């Protein structure tokens, strides 16, 4: 059962060593750390890491992030294990957990933009059923087309799109994330869509108490950092879940 979730963006620049001498967005990193700490305070027995990537698959929890793909001089710091490298979103999520001192079990899933909302919901539900107390680190990014200088240039629809997602998350009615239009999300380069819908699937209709730690678009990409805690289910709902599985 899902007990808590953190939502963090997954830009490579979250890795401090990629931004050069300037830490660039220390407040974003601090907000992500806060959100993950809030999740761990709920004492999960298992943490599921979910992030967008070209391929949907499960990853070995020992897989490592290879930052040399972004900055070749970082090659030397990590010998061996070429190929089969962890998607950056999952690598960043893993770092956040490591930095928060989490030593418990974790499972890693990448989700592709091709996944339908139904696929995502079903993956979320199965993650939630992996343990008594499951937490989710959802690495999800909003539109990358929010400004003229944004990676995807300006699309006026970005602002209301992201505002809608933020509103749902703040409300805690996570099931509403299922209504996000996958086609529009792709047009707006909002790669978080399948991740948000995995989160909705994991919540299984339960509402959450949300705290937003950061929301801004310093580079034209919408970054939202939030932590969510889900109320304990009634025993009836609990047995219902058990029956579903």
């Amino acid at each position, binding site marked *: 059962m899902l007990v808590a979730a953190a939502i963090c963006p997954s*830009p490579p620049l979250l890795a401090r060593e990629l931004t050069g001498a300037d830490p660039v967005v220390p407040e974003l990193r601090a907000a992500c750390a806060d959100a993950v700490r809030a999740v761990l305070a709920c004492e999960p027995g298992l943490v599921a890491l979910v992030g967008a990537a070209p391929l949907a698959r499960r990853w070995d929890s020992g897989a490592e992030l290879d930052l040399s793909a972004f900055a070749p001089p970082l090659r030397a710091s990590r010998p061996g294990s070429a190929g089969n490298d962890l998607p950056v979103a999952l690598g960043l999520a893993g770092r956040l957990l490591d930095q928060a001192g989490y030593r418990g079990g974790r499972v890693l899933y990448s989700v592709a933009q091709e996944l339908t909302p139904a696929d995502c919901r079903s993956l979320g539900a199965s993650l939630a059923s992996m343990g008594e107390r499951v937490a989710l680190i959802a690495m999800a990014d909003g539109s990358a087309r929010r400004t003229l200088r944004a990676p995807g240039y300006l699309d006026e629809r970005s602002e209301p799109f992201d505002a809608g997602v933020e509103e749902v998350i703040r409300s805690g009615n996570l099931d509403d994330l299922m209504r996000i239009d996958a086609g529009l999300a792709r047009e707006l380069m909002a790669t978080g869509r399948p991740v948000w819908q995995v989160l909705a699937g994991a919540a299984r209709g339960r509402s959450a108490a949300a705290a937003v730690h950061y929301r801004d678009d*310093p580079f034209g990409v919408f970054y939202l950092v939030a932590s969510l805690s889900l109320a304990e289910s009634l025993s009836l709902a609990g047995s219902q879940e058990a029956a579903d599985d």
Partner: protein
Amino acid sequence: MTGLPPARERAPGKQSVLRLGDHSFPPEQPLIMGIVNRTPDSFYRPGLTWDEEAAMARVAEVIAEGADIVDVGGVPAAPGKPVDAAEEIRRTAGFIAAVRDSYPGVVISVDTWRHEAARAACAAGADLINDSWGGFDERLAEVAAEFGAGLVCAHVGRQQPRTRPFRVSYRDVMADVLARTQQLAEAAVRAGVDPARIVIDPAHDFGKNTWHSLEVTRRLDEMTATGWPVLVSLSNKDFVGETLNQPPEERLAGTLAATAVSAWHGARIFRVHQVLQSRHVVDMVASIKGERPPARAVRGMA
């Protein structure tokens, strides 16, 4: 010098930490030496900092623009009105004391070939003796040793101070540069100069025609391969002017091109007039080499 860790043994062929004053600079950190001439008649913008107030303002400017070292000279390199040791000391020592007073942390270099002037400069707070006439006065090393100062060992061929090269030729100019600068460096070590404070300099234009200076630039990696830190003084010099057929005030681009090549070959100190532009060039080259991270990298990673 007290309070500093003992000098590391210099491994031949490998660049190691360079110590200047209280500072220790790693091999991958290029240093800019800003020129402040206390002369009325240097070749580039003559008389610019002849006045002490103007000179002090220039020091502030080069430091603000990113100079790590301020190089103070009282005698122009070119022939001209004689400047005796007393006059040289009058021009430099008091000024160095004033710079030391205003900027306790900056590395101060004195450009001189005379041990008397070097002694007065070191007593006033200079950290490095820039012997641009390449060991003409052998007692410079003694002064460096006595004050714990550094020493620049330059190659000037067979030239005497304040003379111009006349029909100079070398069977192999770089071989001559390597032999002479290393000989001077080793002599300095024998005289008691801290090996971590010794720098070698091919001295472009000094005892060299333009072909020689271009060759030395092209083959500068042979100097850096010795393990001694290499200083280059390229700024607006005649080899740039002759190569591009440009007067001193039009030599910046050529100077910066030579700076970039020298930085690529591993030179560590760049003696310059244009500090800001030189800083940009050496930092850019250091980042291309992968020795310095970009100041701020965001593009494509948001």
